[in-house]
């Protein structure tokens, strides 16, 4: 890899932490291949942020400044990335796997006729070529992926590595990105913040959470809720439960629901997709009950039971009720 291009991302007026993580990967790859690190900072009025990023690992930073880049727009950002690739001659383009990153990156890869790998958590160099590692089957298996292409676009899982530290000499180059706002066929309208939910799980000391393994909505009230009641806790759920309409969205725990940190989290019939784990893995103590011994939930749990939740949970509920007298 001769040139690694980081596509930095601005969030709430600052460069995102995940962009510094991309810088860490970029410097590692460039270091092992004798290449250089360059970056794109795209937005509106970005010179200050671009200068900061160039001094904190971004290297030679290209800026793309345009009103259509002030909010995320796939066509506008795609055009800016392609212009930066042309200007830099980059052969590896790194983008964070964020809502804008996952949306724009494959489109850019197709436009560049480049190889594409998404949501990597590791990038290694083998015989001068990058090898990527990522999860497949909703976190149940790891895949090692090689790329053989003049150009590769890769998205990287936020949090996969520590942020790049240390400075470096940087420079700024203004890119001339020809974007005709009137010719765009997609338009950013607004950001809607999440509605205040009726169920605040973040304050519960004990959460009993059910997943797809609970099987049907009635079982939540028959099996999960009684244990929550016995322990004076709250009931939660994983995404598939909410998607199926078994429980409303306010019960959802995970990246698109609530992020919780109770003293005790009991996961019942939850396999442990990454999006669920990020919502509960920092709980003080985690008990997982699942029939599948290979379920990823057991990797984050402190105590595990490989059994039918419909036997264990009622037995535990009874034991708790008896203990309380």
């Amino acid at each position: 890899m001769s040139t690694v291009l980081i596509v930095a991302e601005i969030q709430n007026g600052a460069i995102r932490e995940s962009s510094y993580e991309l810088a860490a990967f970029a410097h590692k790859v460039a270091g092992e291949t004798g290449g250089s690190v360059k970056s794109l900072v795209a937005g509106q009025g970005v010179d200050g942020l671009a200068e900061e990023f160039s001094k904190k690992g971004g290297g030679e930073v290209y800026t793309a400044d345009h009103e259509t880049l002030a909010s995320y727009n796939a066509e506008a950002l795609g055009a800016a990335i392609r212009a930066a690739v042309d200007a830099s001659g980059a052969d590896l383009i790194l983008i964070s796997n964020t809502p804008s990153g996952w949306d724009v990156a494959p489109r850019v890869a197709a436009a560049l006729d480049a190889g594409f790998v998404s949501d990597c958590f590791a990038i290694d160099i083998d015989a001068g070529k990058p090898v990527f590692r990522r999860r497949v089957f909703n976190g149940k298996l790891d895949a090692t992926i090689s790329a053989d292409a003049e150009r590769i676009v890769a998205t990287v899982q936020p949090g996969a590595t520590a942020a790049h530290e240390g400075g470096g000499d940087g420079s700024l180059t203004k890119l001339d990105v020809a974007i005709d706002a009137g010719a765009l066929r997609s338009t950013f309208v607004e950001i809607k913040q999440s509605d205040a939910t009726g169920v605040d799980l973040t304050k519960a000391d004990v959460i009993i959470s059910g997943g797809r393994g609970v099987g049907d909505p009635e079982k939540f009230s028959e099996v999960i809720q009684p244990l929550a009641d016995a322990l004076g806790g709250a009931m939660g759920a994983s995404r598939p439960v909410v998607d199926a309409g078994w429980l409303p969205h306010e019960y959802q725990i995970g990246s698109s629901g609530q992020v919780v940190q109770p003293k005790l989290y009991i996961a019942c019939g939850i396999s442990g997709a990454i999006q669920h784990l990020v919502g509960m893995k920092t709980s003080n103590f985690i008990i997982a009950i699942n029939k599948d011994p290979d379920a990823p939930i057991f990797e984050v749990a402190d105590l595990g039971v490989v059994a039918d939740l419909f036997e264990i949970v009622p037995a535990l509920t009874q034991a708790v009720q008896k203990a309380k007298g």
Partner: protein
Amino acid sequence: MKIMVCLKQVPHQDARLDIKGDGTWIQEDNIKFEINSYDTYALEEALRIKDAGEAEVVVVSIGPDRVSQALRTALGMGADRAVHIKDDEIEGSDALGIAKLLAAVAKDEGPDLILSGLMSDDGNFSAVPQMLAELVGVPHTTAVVKAERSNGTMRCDREIEGGAREVVDLQTPCLVAVQTGINQVRYASLKGIMAAKKKPCDVKSVGDLGLTGQVGAGAAKVTVEKISQPPKGDRAEILEGSTDEVAASLLTKIKELGLL
């Protein structure tokens, strides 16, 4: 209006995931397959537009003979026609190869709207929809949890971080990649399944689509070299014993935590 829905058939979510002999993917013989969960929501979204007025829904899928079952299910749910892209040459294609095949069908069909799921439950790449939009030359958006049509525009709410939504307007024709939970997916009725038997399913080869030599392992820029069990970390201590013994151990732990 014409709606094209891209469906992938994937291993059933409860299927055993055994790694096959050469280590490059799972053992797919003798396991159950189903329509990718995300794609069922895309199909439902199309069928709701059809139910609300005039629309033709064309479902497209790629893969071996088993894929015809997924297409029959989609026809049974209410889709009007199916296109099955089937060819040994497709084996080993990367996302770009798959997107090229779908783009060739889209160029033949000229849909006003292309619907797909955000990602597949097996590869989890989330690449084909965005690539397809680029190759066809239409705007797109992903992770859509609400889509509303008005004159020549699809207004889409897409799920972003922290429970927030980003609202984007797409001019049609466009591609919308949906998130799970956008709707409640219907089941195929018995009447629907009977009617599906008479609905057309075209089978197309790579050559029919003018893509000979442009897809498959030879044309792929990225290759899965191997898959493996994720490294085991400080895994949970697994409790053994009878149901009552396990419940007693859990109770002891809950007491230790000071929660009783």
